[in-house]
């Protein structure tokens, strides 16, 4: 019916999800917001319709319920042009060190669920011969740190998955974007001490995702400063790294 492009945002009620949805809607995309609490997504869908005169819908999606994924994809009225996974859970590292259930939830929320659902979309996109997949990973996946390695290792797995997926799908007309936002002022980071000059607001991430999709960029560190910071962190020798407290 419509010739407009469409985007599906998994984790649509998160701050980055809302920001990404706004950026795409502003650029003229129709938007589907997916999340666990579909009623909570409705005001955001209404916001997008009122602002940008596009179509916005909501869908139920639970990243831990992998058994539902096939049905979720099959139940979409149409295959979107772009799918973005913003799902993630920071969790509490100290708890995850002794509480296996908590550690499992962090690992599954940041790696298993996002990788499986995006993998499903990759197959559909390859069959169609077009599509863009965006995974929001983290700079925390670039090297495991004492303070958050449960979260970081899951994000590392997710980053590796996206990288491999990109290598495989690029010849099939399907583009994969890896987003490493660094510190973002969101609900997830509320109460954490963030370093001011390295911290961005969610709308900056939303705009960066749109830009990466439209310009077909593979990996983005939202703030260029992070590329340098993570380069340094990645190249520190292990003997030195293990003595650092951060």
């Amino acid at each position: 019916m419509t010739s407009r492009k469409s985007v599906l945002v998994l984790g649509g009620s998160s701050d980055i999800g809302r920001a990404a949805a706004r950026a795409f809607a502003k650029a003229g995309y129709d938007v589907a917001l997916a999340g666990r609490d579909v009623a909570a997504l409705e005001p955001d869908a209404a916001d997008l319709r009122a602002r940008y005169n596009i179509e916005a819908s909501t869908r139920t999606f639970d990243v831990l319920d992998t058994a539902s994924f096939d049905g979720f994809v099959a139940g979409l009225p149409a295959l979107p042009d772009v799918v973005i996974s913003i799902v993630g859970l920071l969790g509490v590292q100290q708890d995850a060190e002794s509480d296996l259930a908590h550690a499992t939830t962090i690992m599954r929320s940041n790696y298993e669920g996002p990788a499986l659902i995006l993998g499903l979309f990759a197959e559909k996109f390859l069959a169609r011969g077009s599509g863009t997949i965006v995974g929001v990973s983290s700079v925390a996946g670039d090297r495991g740190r004492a303070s958050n390695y449960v979260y970081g290792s899951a994000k590392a797995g997710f980053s590796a998955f996206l990288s491999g997926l990109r290598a495989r799908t690029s010849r099939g007309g399907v583009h994969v974007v890896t987003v490493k936002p660094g510190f973002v002022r969101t609900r997830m980071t509320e109460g954490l001490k963030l370093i001011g000059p390295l911290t961005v607001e969610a709308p900056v991430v939303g705009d960066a995702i749109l830009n990466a999709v439209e310009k077909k960029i593979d990996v983005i560190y939202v703030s260029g400063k992070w590329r340098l910071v993570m380069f340094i962190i990645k190249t520190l020798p292990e003997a030195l790294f293990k003595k650092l407290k951060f």
Partner: protein
Amino acid sequence: MTSVSGWGRFPVVDSEVLRPRSFGAVDAAVVAGSVARGNGRAYGDAAIGAARTIAMTGFDRIRSFDPATGRIRLEAGVLLSDLIDTFGPQGFLPFVVPGTRFVSVGGAIAADVHGKNHHGEGGFGRYVDSILLRTGAGETIEVSREQNSDAFFATVGGMGLTGVILDAAMRLRRVETGWIRERVVSASDLDAAMRALEAGNSATYSVAWIDCAARGRDLGRSLIYLGEHARADELAERADRFPVGKKPGLTVPVDLPSMTLNRYSIRAFNELYYRMGARRAGADHVVSLYPYFFPLDSINEWNRIYGRRGFLQHQCVIPEAGAREVLGEILERVAKRGDASFLAVLKKLGYGDGLLSFPQPGYTLALDFPVKGDILNFLEEIDRIVVAAGGRLYLAKDARQSRATFEAGYPALSRFKAIRRSLDPACNIRSKLSQRLFDEVKP
């Protein structure tokens, strides 16, 4: 507990800061001594809770918009900058904007902010049709001119003290372009400035920038900026219908040392500003709405110019009768001191709508002062002149006026208090400002 301050960074006080994500969470957040905070652009202590501050900028959704009428319903945390950027290109702007676009709709209602069109078109509240209010008693009620009208007129200009503004329905202005046809008039002294503002009464927008370092014969010399919304056929062919609102390009990186602002730098700046403006005087020209309405927004964190200890803005309104003498007296004292703002702002106001709305017919003068030395005593002297003239001070800018000054300036206070008591018998909604100026409950 977090250290919180307003835009002027004085005073800095401790308050618990909560960031609710749903209206249900707002309910839970309101306990004794809470007040809502928008984007923190009130200068003093208006948006700091006596015990707890409820940050509202997460509520930034548009609920509905009717492009046929310009009617919009939106959450209280939407910033005017967001409204302008989203609906400007669609041909709609807020009817009233203050000197910064980085204020929330909830804050703009609570302070009943005025713009350069107050003399003709009134304040922000005039274009608000209804407000969803979460009272201190725990009820969520719709207030409008027809429904709970007492609560409506106490909420417009009520500094957030009738409850938490959750969302609002209002009207936007239809515009053909995002450009302003501006005319600059130079005035060599205060008499000329007031005459020019009087003559500009029929202009949609008018404001005067006063050189507050000028004394003697030059006292009150100023540039008057008159403005009208430019029609599409008045734009040069190459211009876009709607200009892009750039993010602030410059950031003041650190607190400037207090010696940066002294009588010499201020005098030199004012001299330069006046001369450059006077050269543009006369013919009309078309400028983007952004520099016209929001000249200071182009510099991020400009409040740092006044140094670590912050600054105070003194904004008063003086009734028309006798305004010339009173303004002359104030400007003379300020010029003699030599450490006031780079520029002072003078403009005409009309009637206010809310019970505690700042505007009343007359002239408003706004001055910035760095916090240092005997400034508090000096401003109390100025307050006495304002009170004697039947004037009042703007609560959104205030951090220091006395109860006596406030009570003298706001005769509707007792009525406001009665309405507030009916909405919030236990007086749960309290800010540092209300504690300072009129709360009867002890902290």
